[in-house]
């Protein structure tokens, strides 16, 4: 398979681009505004007189002075110096997908861009219809009764669940007592972190021999203090917990709620429903699983729940009545606002269009293909000497991603996953995702091929890793000093943790290390 794959002679764009503060010339302009009309000036006088003296800006902000084309060119250079998905990116847990350019174009239309969320609902019927349409689609995928799109990302949807959990238990007079949220070490850290932010004590279960925590450990952890369980399944090693229905039952019997963080939905979408497994709520990442772009946001965490929890959802909700759509704001038990307005609307519409383009058949095919691709990759990766699979004693096939380790290669060559990742980018391959902290598997990496990337892309990715592993043995300096074909070369990260050296702005840099 991969031994016949040709490596490409890639080199990143290298513009030697200055920091923007080094650019420009006094007096240049990138945008100008008209003077106010005569009648305006006559009526109100000079602008400065409209500001109380204490609030008049004395020193102009030291922004660069650039012409319009130089700004455009600078940022185009920066985008060319960004690999993004222009090579091959199999970034695990992020489910890299094609982002339909059709929807980039359609959401750039004034009907979306130039609409205000406080317009009368009758002027936003198209948008509301599609939001409601996506709600219906997600209900069918999850079995939940209601979705809301206010959360600005997956972590924000986990936080939404914490707020809903507080409101639910408060409504029953049990919040003071139920102050613990149970999670697992293999559940995304945002679950533990949002639970703690929302005021809960976090109980974290460790994985055991079967690849997931035992029922006994869960039983020992739950009590009348349990507010909720927050969990991924499968986890980010591709291991599915087959006892999950018992988990839900045990937590319910203790009086807690169960939240299914569907960050790793791609391998099970169209295969199972959170509600049918007993969960009270779940979350989908529209900027991952549902085809909207990432760019580290704007993003949407779609949060869905049962009828029982629906009264506590953040408001407003989109409702339909006889073909008309409106916003239900009058929800007395609602947690209020998780985030201002009703969500990142362009992202919601992109997800709606993705789901319509795929349909049930496409979604089923996509989860088939992502599990197929992952198992296909495993064959190629385990053929590379020094690469091993996490929890190799588990013989059942993994779902949409698998964690590997280069610990053996490191023992033999002294070269670890950090150096290997940097070297992989020299071939136009985006650095793989490694693992969340704490690293349960030493020197980890976690690729996720998904349904987008072709067999040829996967073969090339494997061939690049094989080549870097060969270099680690035969010409280790090449790997240790990588990257060579990237925009810039290696740097020492230590000063970035030192208050005397870090510089989050140009003004801080100038003060610490700049002139003189």
């Amino acid at each position: 398979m991969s031994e016949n794959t040709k490596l490409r002679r890639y080199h990143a764009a290298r513009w030697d681009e200055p920091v923007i503060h080094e650019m420009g010339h006094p007096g240049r302009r990138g945008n100008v505004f008209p003077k106010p009309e005569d009648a305006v000036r006559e009526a109100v006088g000079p602008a400065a007189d409209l500001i109380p003296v204490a609030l008049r800006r004395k020193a102009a902000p030291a922004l660069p002075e650039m012409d319009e084309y130089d700004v455009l060119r600078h940022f185009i250079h920066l985008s060319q110096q960004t690999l993004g998905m222009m090579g091959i990116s199999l970034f695990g847990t992020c489910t890299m997908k094609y982002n339909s350019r059709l929807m980039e174009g359609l959401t750039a239309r004034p009907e979306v861009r130039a609409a205000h969320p406080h317009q009368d609902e009758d002027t936003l019927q198209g948008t509301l219809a599609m939001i409601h349409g996506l709600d219906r689609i997600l209900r069918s995928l999850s079995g939940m009764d209601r979705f809301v799109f206010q959360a600005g990302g997956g972590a924000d949807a986990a936080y939404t669940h914490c707020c809903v959990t507080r409101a639910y238990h408060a409504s029953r007079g049990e919040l003071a007592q139920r102050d613990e949220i149970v999670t697992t070490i293999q559940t995304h850290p945002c679950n533990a972190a949002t639970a703690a932010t929302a005021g809960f004590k976090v109980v974290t279960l460790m994985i055991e021999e079967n690849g997931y925590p035992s029922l006994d450990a869960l039983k020992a952890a739950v009590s009348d203090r349990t507010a909720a369980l927050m969990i991924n399944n499968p986890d980010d090693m591709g291991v599915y917990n087959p006892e999950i229905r018992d988990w839900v039952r045990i937590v319910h019997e203790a009086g807690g709620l169960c939240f299914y963080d569907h960050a790793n939905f791609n391998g099970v979408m169209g295969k199972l429903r959170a509600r049918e497994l007993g969960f009270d709520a779940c979350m989908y990442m529209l900027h991952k699983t549902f085809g909207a772009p990432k760019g580290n946001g704007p993003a949407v965490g779609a949060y869905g729940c049962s009828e029982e929890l629906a009264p506590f959802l953040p408001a407003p909700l989109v409702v339909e009545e006889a073909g008309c759509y409106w916003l239900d704001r009058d929800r007395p038990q609602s947690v209020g606002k998780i985030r201002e307005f009703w969500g990142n609307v362009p992202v919601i519409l992109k997800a709606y269009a993705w789901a319509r383009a795929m349909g049930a058949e496409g979604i089923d095919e996509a989860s088939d293909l992502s599990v197929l691709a992952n198992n296909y990759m495993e064959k190629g990766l385990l053929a590379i000497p020094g690469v091993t699979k996490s929890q190799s004693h588990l013989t059942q096939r993994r779902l949409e991603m698998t964690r590997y380790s280069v610990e053996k290669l490191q023992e033999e060559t002294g070269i670890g996953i950090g150096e290997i990742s940097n070297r992989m980018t020299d071939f136009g391959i985006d650095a793989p995702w490694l693992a969340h902290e704490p690293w349960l598997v030493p020197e980890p990496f976690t690729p996720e091929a998904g349904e987008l990337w072709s067999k040829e892309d996967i073969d090339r990715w494997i061939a690049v890793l094989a080549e870097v592993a060969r270099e680690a043995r035969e010409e280790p300096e090449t790997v240790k000093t990588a990257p060579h074909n990237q925009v810039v070369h290696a740097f020492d990260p230590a000063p970035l943790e030192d208050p005397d050296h870090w510089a989050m702005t140009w003004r801080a840099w100038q003060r610490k290390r700049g002139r003189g």
Partner: protein
Amino acid sequence: MKNRLETAHPYMANSVPAIKEAMLRAIGVATVEELFEQIPAEHRLRSPLDLPPAMPSENELRRHVLDQLRRNETCEDNLSFIGGGCWQHHVPAVCDEIAGRAEMMTSVWGTPYSDHGRNQAWFEFASLLGELVGCDVVGQPVYSWGYAAGHAIRMAARLTGRRRVLLPCLIDPERLSVISNLCGSKEMASHIEIVEIGFDDETGLLDLADLEAKLSGETAAVYFDCPSHLGLIESQGAEIAALARLHGAETIVGADPISLGVLEAPPVYGADIVVGPMQPLGIHMNTGGGVGGFLATRDEARYVHEYPTLLISLARTRRDEWAFALSCAHQTSYGLREEGKDWTGNSVNNWAIVNAVYLALMGPAGMRELGELILQRANYAAFKLVEIDGVALRFSGPLFKEFVLDYAGTGKSVAAINAGLRRHGIFGGRGLGDLGGDLGPDFETCALTCVTEIHSQADIDRFADALAEEAAR
């Protein structure tokens, strides 16, 4: 039997039977189904998915989405004066060009080498905004202004070890609700108590006597907006910050950055932490999906070590090139899970890049010109509209781009006036009946009206004529 796609799907390279068979052969299994062996049969779907039929044809999908979108009306086809946390400003075309660049849009985490350009743009967001807000440290963005304020309040609580925040009762109720969720529930030990400060009924500015009475050794922070939710330039910033400092509390200012070409940078009058919205700086309203928030402070380790955001620092490589990389990442939830500072995740980072483009285009002169134009046109609108019988300005304080019109004298409700304005192709300012606490009823007849650089004198005059007609109807 499953429904199957009839042809390969354009979004899925391997949806070709021959490729799937080759991959299955390589794995050594006969069917894809065998690969799902971990999932017990009783966990699988109990009924088939009930979704509308697949539309793999772009032509067909385009028509479907377009048919829906055409049911919307826009603030381009109508003249809109709606503001309140989402504002219609001019978006330079270069901002849209860069926002849509595929490399930026599709980047995920990357490395400081492979996503060097993206990291540089993130740094330049922080760096340019730092000049505007007068801060040496700016974090990468959070979800919204409400989040920025909430995280800042939580930072202040950790810094001071205190659990009470004072903020104006006239704050945007949406923002307050976001903050309130972040401050927790009163049943819980970690709860941060929110105490609201009153306002001067004449000017609409903060009531300093009330602030002084409520400040104590228990106060972690005083938060206020400038301009305020109701558009007023809070001129007492120095006095507020001095009072807060006297009690050992942090001063947090929420500033609309589009005002800062003409209004003073908050640290100059005493702000310790500056937060605010990102949307005004080159981001379309996007039906509310354009919001984002920023968080900025002095460059002191005690502040930096409390940031819940990503932080990007400048550095030099071993070959003396610029490098841009994460700093203090271990203190986040990625490093410390529940021990991290609040939490970190996907935010609105692509908007940060747009903000950088915007500020580079504006420069110091652009920001000043823009601020002056907004000030003059908004004040002109207020001047012009109060000439209408029955229409009054609710507050006398200095205003920037928003103001409160009181329609009480017309004998008509805000809803009735706005319904009338719709007939003229005008979206009037939103009613303020939802203001927090007991305030709502006092503002039942009031509308928050927004005027920016996009409104010409002719637009404002047209609004005045229509409002006069509807007020007298």
